[in-house]
């Protein structure tokens, strides 16, 4: 009981102390910024109004009976109990309404399925719990992680305006171009959704799905993963930045250059301090959600790294777990997700943070060699 009481008081406190700028009272779907999303919005409004009109007609008859045909008012019941004409009519009329509804729905669907003749192809891969965007023709790719801090989630600090909907590296696309998305997943099924585009498609491990969009207005568009994918399903937002074409081209050139720099970093000699600094950042994005910022983990599902036997002693085992993951558990293989530099930095960080002071440095070259040995 004690624990419950404590939790309850914390909960009540959180309710009373809440001074956050809370949301709005949005009632309806928003039209969006693409042709598809506008067509969907029109379909949605049409079917909604059809339902409202039918509903009003049916309920009007019902409420009339409820008010007028009451026993308490001495109303004597009629005895009719069938009428073939009426029955046929209320079978045929709804059928006709449905046919009328199906026509625009079919047209929209055919349009949405036409992903041919795209200008840009982006491969979207769902991971537990982040997205990877690979620009197939430009030969670079990167991960997109949620930026919201654990402190915000656990109500320790004020929540940001874009709470849960902000990422470190958004997808960037040019306006006015047909962008084709090829979706797949690394582990479980995820679903990639940007409401303003009217695009939602499942990312399924081992299979590739296709969809597309053409955004007319520059802006930042936010969405979320919409297929339950495990613990942090709520924490893998989708952010897409639509920019004018020139800006997009500059951004692509910059990405390609930084991919090149990343390769050079592997060659560089790293000091413990440099690796620790980089490792802390990488740890916060890749590891902290499960193993916690202070390395204490959440046993038994997520073991503590602080004071862990493996982390303190066995370097090979540590490399193996981080690079290859632990099959059958929530620990993923980070070998393909992080660069050699980040892998080295994370491992070094884990071996030297939170009083784990081993003083050992694992270099990017060591990681590179380890990966190639396998």
């Amino acid at each position, binding site marked *: 009981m004690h624990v419950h009481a404590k939790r309850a008081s914390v909960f009540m406190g959180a309710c009373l102390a809440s001074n956050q700028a809370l949301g709005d009272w949005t009632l309806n779907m928003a039209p969006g910024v693409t042709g598809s999303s506008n067509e969907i919005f029109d379909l949605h409004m049409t079917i909604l109004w059809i339902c409202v009109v039918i509903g009003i007609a049916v309920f009007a008859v*019902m409420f009339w009976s409820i008010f007028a045909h009451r*026993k308490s008012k001495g109303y004597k019941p009629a005895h009719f109990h069938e009428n073939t004409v009426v029955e046929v009519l209320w079978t045929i009329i709804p059928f006709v309404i449905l046919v009328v509804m199906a026509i625009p*729905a079919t047209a929209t669907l055919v349009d949405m399925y036409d992903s041919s003749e795209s200008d840009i192809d982006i491969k979207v891969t769902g991971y537990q719990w982040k997205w990877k965007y690979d620009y197939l023709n430009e030969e670079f790719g990167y991960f997109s992680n949620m930026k919201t801090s654990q402190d915000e989630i656990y109500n320790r600090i004020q929540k940001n305006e874009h709470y849960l909907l902000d990422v470190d590296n958004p997808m960037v696309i040019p306006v006015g171009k047909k962008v084709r998305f090829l979706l797949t997943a690394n582990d479980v099924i995820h679903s990639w959704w940007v409401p303003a585009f009217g695009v939602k498609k499942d990312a399924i491990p081992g299979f590739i799905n296709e969809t597309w969009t053409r955004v007319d207005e520059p802006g930042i568009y936010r969405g979320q993963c919409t297929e339950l994918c495990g613990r942090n399903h709520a924490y893998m937002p989708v952010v897409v930045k639509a920019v004018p074409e020139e800006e997009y081209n500059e951004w692509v050139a910059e990405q390609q250059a930084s991919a090149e720099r990343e390769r050079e970093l592997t060659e560089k000699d790293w000091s413990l301090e440099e690796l620790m600094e980089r490792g802390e950042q990488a740890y916060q994005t890749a590891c902290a959600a499960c193993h916690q910022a202070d390395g204490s983990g959440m046993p038994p599902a997520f073991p503590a790294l602080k004071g862990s036997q493996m982390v303190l002693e066995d370097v090979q085992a540590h490399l193996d777990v981080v690079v290859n993951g632990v099959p059958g558990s929530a620990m993923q293989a980070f070998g393909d997700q992080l660069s050699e530099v980040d892998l080295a930095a994370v491992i070094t960080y884990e071996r030297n943070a939170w009083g784990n002071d081993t003083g050992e440095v694992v270099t990017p070259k060591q990681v590179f060699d380890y990966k190639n040995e396998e």
Partner: protein
Amino acid sequence: MSAVIDTHDQDHHHGPAKGYITRWLFTTNHKDIGSMYLIFSFAMFLLGGTMAMVIRAELFQPGLQIVEPEFFNQMTTMHGLIMVFGAVMPAFVGLANWMLPLMIGAPDMALPRMNNWSFWLLPCAFLILVSTLFMEGGAPNFGWTFYAPLSTTYGPPSTTFFIFAVHIMGVSSIMGAINVIATILNMRAPGMTLMKMPLFVWTWLITAFLLIAVMPVLAGVVTMMLMDINFGTSFFDAAGGGDPVLFQHVFWFFGHPEVYIMILPAFGAVSHIIPAFSRKPLFGYASMVYAVGAIALLSFVVWAHHMFTVGMPIAGQLFFMYATMLIAVPTGVKVFNWVATMFRGSLSFETPMLFAVAFVILFTIGGFSGLMLAIAPADFQYHDTYFVVAHFHYVLVPGAIFGIFASAYFWLPKWTGHMYDETLGKTHFWLSFIGMNLAFFPMHFLGLAGMPRRIPDYALQFADFNMVSSVGAFMFGATQILFLWIVVKCVRGGKKAEANPWDGAEGLEWTIPSPAPYHTFSTPPVVK
């Protein structure tokens, strides 16, 4: 249940066995088994409801306050499984056990020993399922739809226990369904032709066929999971040549008829209650029967409308969209017939009628959102958002559950021999009605504004309606304790109920005394 024990023996048969164990554990009496099913289902309703309260408490505000995401996912999963398999389905089997023999003039169910077994399997199955909450790694956390590979490669160790529990529930359901079919087809009183059967009997007959058709499919899909997890097969693992989407096809081939299994018996019950309190015969009996048949048949060819975003070919999308929209036609016929039954009747609004009228109105709202979801392109925006959560709670809570409440109030006088407290009954209705709408209507808005389902934490723009929804859910949840009190009070005493306490009710069940004697219709009545 003392009221049943008190019953003096009208037909000069022996009464219930003496002793608690022999009376309840070994009973083959349809009334005892019906009561046990109903009590069990209400216990599960409270348990599943408690889990819903945890969910709504966590969602009261953005951020994580009460539970961690792992536990939240266990709550959503267990809430769904317990409500579907533990609360709604057993409640209808309980009603079937009590009422089918009384409605068709049979002395008992056709297979009374199997009846006993199919009930007692259920507590075993749910003991196993609920025990997973206390296992290392926790209970199933992959949603009640348990999509692979989240439930196979990435599932907790307790998944195998979950599979075993589902197998046992399936066996129980199949045996229950066989019993219903055998009873209805073989044991009707002389003169009761198929087209003279009461609608509750008709809807249960069709439901039983649905159960027999799809429970083996559910057993099949969980067995494939079992093989994938423990025996190295790759039905759902792309790395071994399998396909995660295959899981969804098999699951929803079970899952869509399953949603009709949960609503058709309620259709039947409401088709008794509305005429009774309208004092006017049911409008369009034959078309009601045909509509239920049409809905049941169509339910086998619409499953992939749950999967519009998995990347089916366009021909598949179009087929499933059209087939799904078609279901609106027979469903519409049913609603129109209920309204036509009320039209120019002589209406009074006792508690069963209040629940039945709310059923028609709110189920229709759930039907409208279902029609919207059937439009495949629009579904791309609705899919896996709170709009879907709103939709299926509108068809299941005021649909299935209000249907069960209406039935319980309608037949309580027959079961206990006492009238329930009308004032308390109406209070229960109005608090449930307001709480339920407050809880679930705002979910439409949340879904349209873009809130995904199955998340323990959400962006700030969803905060206001979530708070409203939680308040409504707490209200609805607390109100159900009142129902428990009403039933206990009614069992213990109250105004004596006549054989037919409702002046407009018709059917064989109202020709026998209240409470119904332990053995009824040992000599079959003759139906003209």
